[in-house]
């Protein structure tokens, strides 16, 4: 067995040596006067990414780029990676990717970054992959901002439930831990226990807040499961007051709202959201959702193409430094800027953001 293992290892190592061209971004730069070819691939299909696509399309016009934008049908790294591999073989000069599984994809992204300029957006991968930069907000800080909205909605504590697509991607990990760190400090890991008035519901206490099931409920991406997850939790909490449901992916707040409508609980429970789904913004304007954390995906798309186009022409000055993309809060009436943990956070009116998003979408034909 050991001999066979050694043989296999040696064979594969030999093959690795044969294939390692070490061309480090050889395909990334283009001769003067040539249009760079840029690919942007998201983690799944969602209106959030339509905004990103609009931004990328605008940048493609502004910076004279051939752009291919893909929204894979499922939140699955096994579907996303073949798209990226095909682009590399097609001779793309730069690729932007919203990473789904940073650990699992680390090796593949490292391999890709050796051949093509690679940018991560919305969801980061390890810096050791060799990506040029990460274009996105600090998800942990943004999660803390959502946590502060929960505190404002339920100042005396209460029952919360978190909803998200998965719990492994970098943005999911950051947002979940951000919310819980904000609510639970200093008991950031939570204390397991039973719900005070519904002992059949297990969970964890984070300060004055009880988290249903002690973890974020995952739904695998946009779809009916996002609604049924919320509906099931609301069913289990029947009769409980002071509930706040937190939707951490763009489609989660509208899904929570739909489940709340089905149970005639709109206005009776608090909802805190993430991202700028038009349904979410409308609901904030009507007072049905407390507020949301806005990442500006239009800018993600725009900046990704800008950085990659410049890199393809040999200009690395556009690379975005850590923490340079701010998040913003969106509430019904907006408010003054806040300075939290050294970050200046804008608090914008939902109606204003909704108009901006509609304008962004209309500015470039999809």
């Amino acid at each position: 067995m050991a001999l066979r293992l050694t043989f296999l290892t040696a064979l594969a190592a030999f093959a690795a040596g044969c294939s390692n061209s070490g061309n480090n971004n050889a395909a990334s730069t283009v001769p003067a006067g040539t249009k760079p070819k840029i690919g942007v691939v998201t983690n799944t299909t969602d209106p959030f990414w339509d905004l990103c696509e609009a931004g990328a399309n605008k940048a493609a016009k502004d910076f004279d780029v051939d752009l291919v934008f893909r929204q894979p049908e499922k939140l699955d790294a096994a579907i996303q990676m073949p798209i990226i591999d095909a682009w590399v073989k097609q001779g793309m000069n730069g690729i932007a990717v919203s990473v789904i599984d940073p650990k699992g994809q680390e090796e593949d992204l490292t391999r890709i970054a050796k051949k093509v300029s690679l940018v991560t957006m919305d969801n980061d991968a390890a810096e050791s992959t060799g990506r040029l930069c990460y274009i996105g907000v600090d998800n942990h800080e943004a999660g803390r901002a959502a946590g502060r909205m929960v505190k404002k909605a339920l100042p005396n504590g209460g029952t919360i439930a978190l909803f998200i697509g998965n719990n492994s991607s970098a943005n999911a990990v950051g947002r979940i831990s951000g919310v819980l760190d904000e609510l639970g400090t200093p008991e950031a890991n939570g204390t397991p226990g039973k719900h005070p008035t519904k002992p059949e519901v297990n969970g964890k206490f984070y300060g004055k807040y009880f988290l249903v099931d002690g973890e974020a409920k995952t739904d695998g991406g946009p779809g009916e499961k996002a609604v049924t997850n919320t509906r099931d939790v609301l069913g289990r909490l029947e009769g409980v007051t002071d509930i706040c449901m937190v939707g951490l992916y763009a489609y989660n707040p509208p899904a929570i709202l739909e489940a709340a409508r089905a149970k005639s609980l709109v206005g009776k429970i608090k909802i805190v959201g993430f991202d700028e789904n038009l349904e979410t913004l409308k609901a904030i304007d009507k007072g049905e959702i407390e507020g949301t954390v806005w990442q500006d995906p239009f800018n993600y798309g725009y900046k990704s193409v800008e950085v990659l186009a410049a890199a393809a022409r040999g200009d690395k000055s556009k690379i975005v430094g850590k923490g340079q993309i701010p998040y913003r809060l969106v509430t019904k009436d907006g408010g003054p800027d806040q300075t939290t943990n050294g970050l200046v956070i804008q608090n914008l009116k939902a109606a204003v953001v909704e108009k901006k998003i509609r304008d962004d979408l209309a500015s470039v034909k999809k």
Partner: protein
Amino acid sequence: MTRILGIVGLVTALYAALLLSTPPAGKTDNLIDVANLQGQYGIVTLGAALVIIVGGIDLSIGSVVGCAAVLFGVVMKSGVHPYAAVLLVLAFGATVGLVNGLLVTRLKLQAFLVTLCGMFVYRGLARLIGGTVSRNWVTDPRDPAAHPEFDQPLRGLRFLTIGKDFNGELLFPGEFVLLLVLAAVLGFFLHRTAYGRYWYAIGHNELAAEYAGVNVNRQRVMVYVICSTLAALAGVLLFLNSPSVQSDAGGSSWELFAILGAVLGGCSLRGGEGTAVGMVLGAMVMPVVDNFVNLRGMKSDGIPAVIGLTLLVGTIIDEVIRRRSKAGKV
């Protein structure tokens, strides 16, 4: 032979369209990529096709693929060596097939219903036993529960079965080679042994086969076992080939690709028809279309429709060729 002509024409036309679409399409590394994807779908197509030949259907294939991939990761994480884990996962697949086969033959339940229920059961099982699994999750040296010592054997297995080197670069279409080997073995049984004659006979006329002395139930169970074992093997390959496998998405819809490949390859859903060569050719269609739309840089929103329409047109052309060749014979 005439049954194969349609699918040969379709595959040739699709390859021609692909090669003419963009210059990178004809590059060796791109064709290796396509071949590997053909191998991936082809392995489950072989199983689906066998079940179809005996007049059955297996809708649980995709869920078994996903469940097997997750199980492979989970058992290795618990300390089972990768080689032993492969055997365990294949045994899991065989057990699934045995259960499906017994339910269909002994309880006389409809294969459609049994395997439809299996589709939900094994997807649910995958979600119960694990979330997202990957080689990194199993071998990460920073994780005290992981097994870094499995990294080398897993990379070795990946090199042999997928064709990827230590950096994850695809050097040769390992999955396609595996498909050809499996198809050759299956073809031998199907076309050169009594088993094949039994399977065709059962698919053509089950009652007649039974009167002729064929143990129909045993043969049917055997075919379901082969089908689910191949699906489990595909799950292991999915784990080795992918950056990660999600329990709720891994292998999703593969049963449809497998059935599509089998039917395009000449298997009749009424049973009793199909060849090993046809199965391989049928499985080659979808990845070529997929690669075509990827390289053309088509809009995300239009891709499913383009794939569906291409396959539909292919099916129509294939059917027309078959009818004409039949009419010609008459």
